[in-house]
């Protein structure tokens, strides 16, 4: 299966697709919240629409001596990074940008979030967002290196950084089967750069709203929507790099990508309510002393297999 680059005219459609799937993720989160609260599940389905209506109706607010440009650049950064991430992910036979270094591109876009969340925290000139922004960077130092090596693993196995080649290399066996550690670390990395679930300390996992503590209206919407879009982009990349992308029986390739992305995304969304938040200052030690060696061993095993197989 070869991947072809579509013309730039398809870009809005790709963005709309990402936002649609992200909305579905938000609806799923709403349903899970309704279940936890003992409410009818259908009520939760409307959560993304209701929250969007609420935030679009709300006034924005500023704080004293805020650095508004930086705050807004940071706030818009999440959604932007997510949109840029999915440009390299092939949707069945088509891709928006057939970059020969797609894996590195994805990695570079997730590093943009370091800047985005820190700026969003710095801008309001207020204690809680500022602290949360710094805490996100502390967390980033813990997750980024394991994530990088987890991204390297499938690239080594496929002998290419192009996502199309990664998919082609999985025609027989999905990468997740023989690199499970890298897959799990990658999923944790997606949760971490989306500041989601156990890694949501920077975005209000528990205390006073985090980076969002001073944001209202459309500023808050951008960050909230950006978070779901990031999870979606991460799930789409994971489905492509580890779960075989478009490979599968009967269904067309694009539908397989969609199904796999949706399943992975559902798992990531559901994890949010099932786990407590990990405090960033306690994360560093296990991340560097346990996870990093584990993923390096995984990389070594994969490399040896690749060399032996020729």
């Amino acid at each position, binding site marked *: 299966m070869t991947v072809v680059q579509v013309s730039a005219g398809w870009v809005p459609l790709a963005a709309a697709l990402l936002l649609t799937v992200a909305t579905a993720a938000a609806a799923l989160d709403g349903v899970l919240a309704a279940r936890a609260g003992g409410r009818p599940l259908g009520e939760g389905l409307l959560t993304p629409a209701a929250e969007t209506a609420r935030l679009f109706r709300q006034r924005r607010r500023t704080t004293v001596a805020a650095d508004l440009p*930086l705050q807004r650049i940071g706030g818009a950064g999440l959604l932007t990074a997510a949109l840029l991430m999915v440009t390299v992910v092939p949707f069945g036979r088509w891709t928006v940008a057939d*970059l020969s270094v797609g894996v*590195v591109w994805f990695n570079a876009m997730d590093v943009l979030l*370091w800047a985005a969340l*820190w700026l969003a925290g*710095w801008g309001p*000139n207020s204690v809680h967002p500022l602290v949360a922004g710094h805490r996100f960077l502390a967390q980033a130092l813990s997750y980024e290196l394991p994530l990088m090596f987890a991204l390297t693993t499938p690239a080594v196995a496929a002998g290419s950084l192009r996502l199309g080649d990664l998919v082609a290399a999985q025609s027989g066996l999905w990468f997740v089967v023989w690199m499970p550690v890298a897959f799990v670390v990658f999923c944790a990395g997606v949760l971490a750069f989306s500041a989601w679930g156990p890694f949501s300390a920077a975005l209000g996992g528990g205390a006073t709203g985090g980076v969002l503590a001073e944001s209202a209206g459309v500023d808050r919407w951008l960050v909230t929507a950006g978070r779901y879009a990031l999870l979606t982009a991460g799930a789409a990349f994971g489905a492509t790099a580890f779960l075989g992308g478009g490979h599968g029986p009967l269904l067309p390739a694009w539908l397989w990508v969609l199904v796999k992305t949706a399943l992975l995304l559902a798992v990531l969304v559901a994890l949010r309510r099932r786990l407590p938040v990990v405090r960033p200052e306690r994360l560093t030690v296990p991340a560097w002393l346990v996870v990093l060696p584990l993923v390096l061993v995984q990389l070594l095993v994969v490399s040896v297999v690749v060399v032996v197989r020729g």
Partner: protein
Amino acid sequence: MLSGIVFWVLAVVAVAAGVAVFRVDSMARATYALAASFVAVGLSLLLLDLQFLGVMTVLMMVMEMAIMAIYMIMFMGMNPALMPMSMVHGKRPALLISVGTFAVLATGALLVPWPTRRGAPAADLVTSLGEAVMESKMLVMLTVSPVLFATIVAALVLALPRSRYDRLGADLRGRADR
């Protein structure tokens, strides 16, 4: 045509953001103006088909600037956004050095007799470049890189034997054992 427009846009952004580094009056803005400048440079590398280098530049520079901002604030101890301050120190020598460097490099670029192309570029540029650069020294290179990495890690370990949480636990009260 299109790549010409893209190049000029990126070039202007890179230079303008570079100038902004010295013109803005807050540490956060200066840092991220520098990051924006580097991102524009990295993206313009994509135009030269140096995709890996270009994307790597974006990745490294954003990461680096994010950390640099923390260090600046940590050591300056300044209030965010509140305190406007000049981002320029030691103006005169800095100006002299930078103008001098620019002049030397520019004259070099203009005066050096650039060689003309002989033969055609290889099919796999990266591989052939790597072989041209270090074919005979591959073993040395392979040894040097882990040694360098180990040195960095060892230096860090020596410089910071124990973190604040190791010394003091979750409760950071008490005098650090300095």
